[in-house]
């Protein structure tokens, strides 16, 4: 393969990829989208919940069905921890079909957990930590 062909191949492959990355990045970083998502987050969370999210980087949502269970939702995209008696018992992964601003992800988790916990648990993929899994195995 000569140099001209190599450069041609690189342009054909890299140009669309760079364009796609630029579009996705600028789309996600739209100030209007982030601002509106931040406003919705403030409107949906209580002052206490908002404070926890900003200061600690996560939001603890008590389970409506189990007083010992708490869902720890991260401020940035990531897995949700299911905590019981202070210990992580599971990680949950759930995401919207379309990409949304980070603040909207927190809103989605909160609304679904508080209003429809069973559907939330059915839809989320769950991962059980090995230590928890082993401790629950019959001897």
């Amino acid at each position, binding site marked *: 393969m000569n140099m001209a062909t190599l450069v041609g191949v690189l342009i054909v492959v890299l140009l669309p990829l760079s364009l796609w990355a630029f579009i996705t990045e600028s789309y996600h970083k739209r100030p209007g989208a982030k601002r509106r*998502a931040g406003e919705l987050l403030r409107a949906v969370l209580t002052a206490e919940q908002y404070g926890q999210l900003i200061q600690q980087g996560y939001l603890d949502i008590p389970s409506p069905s189990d007083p010992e269970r708490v869902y720890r939702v991260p401020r940035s995209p990531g897995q949700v921890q299911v905590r019981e008696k202070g210990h992580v018992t599971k990680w949950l992964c759930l995401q*919207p*079909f*379309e990409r*949304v*601003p980070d603040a909207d992800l927190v809103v*989605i988790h909160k*609304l679904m957990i508080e209003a429809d916990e069973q559907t939330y648990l059915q839809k989320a993929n769950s991962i059980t930590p090995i230590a928890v899994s082993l401790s629950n195995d019959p001897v």
Partner: protein
Amino acid sequence: MGMLRIISNRGDERLRWNEQDVLAGDAEALAAIREAERIFARERARGATAFRVEAGKPVERLEQFDAQVSQIVMVPRVVGG
């Protein structure tokens, strides 16, 4: 005032209506309600879930559009990650 907020990749889109004007038969207010109902039905058909979010009240799922609710938030279809 009532508000429908639809979460999307553009943040959330908002549609407002004035319930008092609707009751008074105001044409613009009636048109806003009809538009909110249409968008609600369209998003539900796409798999979105609607929630009633009002200050001081527990969040509830909403199966049908309700103009009496002060804030409805629609969440797009979700999948296990």
